């Protein structure tokens, strides 16, 4: 197995039924928890499959170490799609390596839940979470928020001329100037494709295509095409734009008036875990203000209302009400169909 559960059989704390959250203060980074929980905290090891950025992992690793000094946290990091592909093979092989899963695509959790692979756990921070969560089975809960928005290159487009809505991108004004992310490569793009097609019908994509919109690959390569000025406008993740903007690249963000697409990426515990206590503790930690700060540092929005928005972003509350609605169950059932349809439309000239 992929190491995730190898050390867990000798879990001394498996008998304890109350797990104190490692950092409850929310002000300093886990300073108090380190002293109080050293002896009784979860131990063994735990494997997290995730699609969060490696920078964030690097950032939180020391914190987790401080919070759970006896616990060895291991990471497998990759794009959502790679993680889920790996999971698929592991499920087939009957040997899931992950104890904890944090990937972007909420519909995947629906799928896992339907297959009865997720453990039900209501975190003590569950109620603090302000977005989509499994309020019936407590199989998963949102842990970070990504948003699909419009970005534009400020060298080429003046702020007042920038498109205000997704709809507007089919306007001849943007002919040959729009680049979008490929939903077959990116789960968040799949969500936005689904949401837009639900809202405007597939004609929307036909119009986009006829207007010369181009698929730029995954989020990062699409980002590059926007940054370098190959395209003026992109439909892309907010976090990508925030990151490069901070680096000094000439881009800016539009929160489309016809609805930002909000993707609340969940966290969930696999039923097959051998170290449930640790998994639960880590979930709690992620949902704590401490964990959420790390999320924000990674340019995503927190699921908690008491944590600030990332630098340079509008607060979630300002666009959440107008956001596009996504039926995750429906998407989980129809994702293949959505991709096919998209390819069929965009793959022909």
């Amino acid at each position: 197995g992929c190491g995730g559960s190898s050390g867990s059989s000798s879990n001394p704390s498996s008998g304890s039924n109350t797990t104190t959250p490692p950092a409850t203060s929310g002000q300093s980074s886990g300073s108090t928890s380190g002293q109080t929980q050293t002896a009784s905290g979860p131990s063994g090891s735990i494997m997290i499959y995730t699609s969060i950025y490696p920078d964030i992992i690097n950032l939180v690793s020391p914190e987790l170490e401080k919070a759970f000094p006896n616990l060895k946290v291991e990471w497998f990091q990759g794009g959502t799609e790679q993680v889920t592909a790996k999971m698929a093979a592991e499920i087939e092989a009957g040997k899931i390596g992950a104890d904890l899963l944090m990937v972007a695509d909420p519909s995947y959790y629906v799928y896992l839940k339907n297959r009865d692979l997720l453990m039900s756990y209501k975190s003590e921070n569950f109620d603090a979470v302000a977005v989509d969560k499994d309020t019936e089975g407590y199989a998963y809960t949102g842990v970070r928020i990504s948003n699909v928005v419009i970005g534009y290159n400020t060298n080429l487009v003046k702020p007042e001329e920038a498109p205000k809505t997704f709809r507007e991108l089919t306007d001849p004004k943007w002919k040959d100037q729009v680049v979008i992310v490929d939903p077959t490569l990116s789960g968040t793009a799949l969500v936005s494709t689904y949401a837009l097609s639900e809202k405007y019908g597939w004609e929307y994509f036909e119009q986009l295509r006829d207007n010369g919109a181009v698929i730029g690959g995954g989020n990062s390569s699409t980002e590059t095409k926007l940054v370098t000025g190959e395209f003026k406008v992109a439909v892309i993740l907010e976090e990508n734009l925030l990151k490069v903007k901070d680096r000094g690249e000439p881009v800016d963000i539009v929160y489309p008036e016809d609805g930002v697409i909000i993707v609340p990426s969940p966290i969930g515990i696999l039923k097959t875990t051998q170290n449930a206590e640790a998994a639960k503790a880590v979930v709690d930690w992620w949902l704590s203000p401490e964990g959420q700060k790390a999320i924000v540092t990674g340019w995503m929005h927190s699921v908690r209302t008491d944590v600030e928005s990332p630098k340079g972003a509008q607060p979630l509350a300002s666009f959440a009400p107008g956001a596009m609605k996504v039926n995750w169950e429906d998407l989980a059932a129809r994702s293949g169909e959505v991709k096919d349809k998209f390819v069929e439309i965009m793959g022909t000239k």
Partner: protein
Amino acid sequence: MRFNFDAKSVAIALAVAVLLVFGIFPIALLVIDAFIVDGHFSLDNFREVYVNKSNLMAVWNTVKASGLTMLFSTAISFPLAWLVGRTDLPFKNVFRTLIITPYMIPPFIGAFAWGYLANPRIGYLNQWIRAVFPFFEQGPINIYSMNGMVWVLVLFYFPFSFLSISRALEKMDPSLEEAARISGAGPLRVLRNITIPLTAPAIAAGALLVFVAVASAFGIPSIIGGQARIQVVTTRIISYVYVGTTEAMHEATALAVVLLMLSIAVLWFSNWYLAKREYFTLAGKSTRPTLVELGPWKWPLVAVFAIVCFVFAILPIMALVMTSLVKTMGRGFAFDNLTLDVWRSVLADDATWRTLRTSLYSSVLAATGGTLVGLLIAYLKVKTRMRFRTIPDFLATFTNATPGIVLALGLILAFSGKFGLNLYGTFWILVVAYFVRHLSYAVRQAAAALEQVHPSLEEAALSSGASWLRLFKDVTIPLVGPSVVGGWFLVFMPSFYELTMSVLLYSSKATPAGYHLYHLSSYASPQSAAVLSVLILILVLIGNLLMRWASRGRVSL
């Protein structure tokens, strides 16, 4: 027939067993699963996948892109290989190395590089051209097209044919060509009637590798094809795999089967064509190696070759270097926008060196194992009369034709302990993955070289009392040596920067450079990815120089 427990049979049997266990078994698991729906045999997955219009279109695009790339690669390789292999072209050792440097760049990074160079709007090349010819408004080069994609594919995959053809030409007995000259044929005629037909195994080997490699490639088609709206089989397969469900995995496998079929068809055709003739161009009577003197053509050809090298190798590397040096990509390449920060941060990053080391170990192991097993499988096919001798070759081609992502899934299925062997999550799964995926490169190179060697050279060793193992080590391997080195390199390089499988199979204990590259390009910045790939390139070139120096010129690219 009594079964002989001789070294030859044992070695070959071992090689075949390794191939079966590590290559065929995982694929078979997946393919068999693809036939099972709800616990029953069913063709539903296949029906599902092959009635889909986009998929059929993708199959056609794959055939077209692979076929064109194969044609152009061969057409480019032969003259270049001939120039470095058989003429007195000055600087040919430099050219020989330079011309294959694109192969040392990860294809998807190279695709980015060509995007920077030749995207119709702000590609460096197009900007320069427009500076000279202002009447172009856009373009004129559009890399995001079938032509553009084939161009990039050719640049990255033609080293397969270049290496095998140039080795074959060097090893060829010159008196065979001389006999044609004396019959009255001019040099071009000799090329057509003698040289090309006699190097047919090498040409076919190269062409086949190019075809299969392109058909199963993902990086370039996804980056260039995506924007050009060209779907190929691998991009379709990825889209199935990325659904993330078991069912989709089976559909992906069902679709991958078309690649297996395509590759069998091509291999079968090449076997059929080659079987009609004999190609012993290295026999027991040595003749003097003669180089064609280019005379007045010498310097013009040097110029042409230099230009080709510039376009193939220097340009994309330049694009990468330029990209890596800018402060903000939005402002492009300008003197007040330059910085060494990206270089500094990548070089200072501990992960860079750690992952490079892991990749070095795993790819050296994969390449060495692949070369050995490949040589044995090729030997079985070419030099023995055993029944079913061509089958392992077909199987190795299977593992090569299976897209990395599918193969990785198969390896997870097969080696996570369910069947007794638990490699998943260790360093060894990487070695196995690289080995299996690239094995057929070594098989093809070795087979083409072995076709040239007259049996009497081996028989002489046997009659000297050499056991087969000795003979293999002392005579066979040295005779096909340069091709073996070429094959090793062909396996080593893509293993070193392998990405698709690495991303699924790495573990925190063994993280290869391919993963780091992926991470840099998708989470950090394309600039740092460019730095890392240029770094890989430099390291490989230094390695080559060291090898050449240590072996006094006998072992090098």
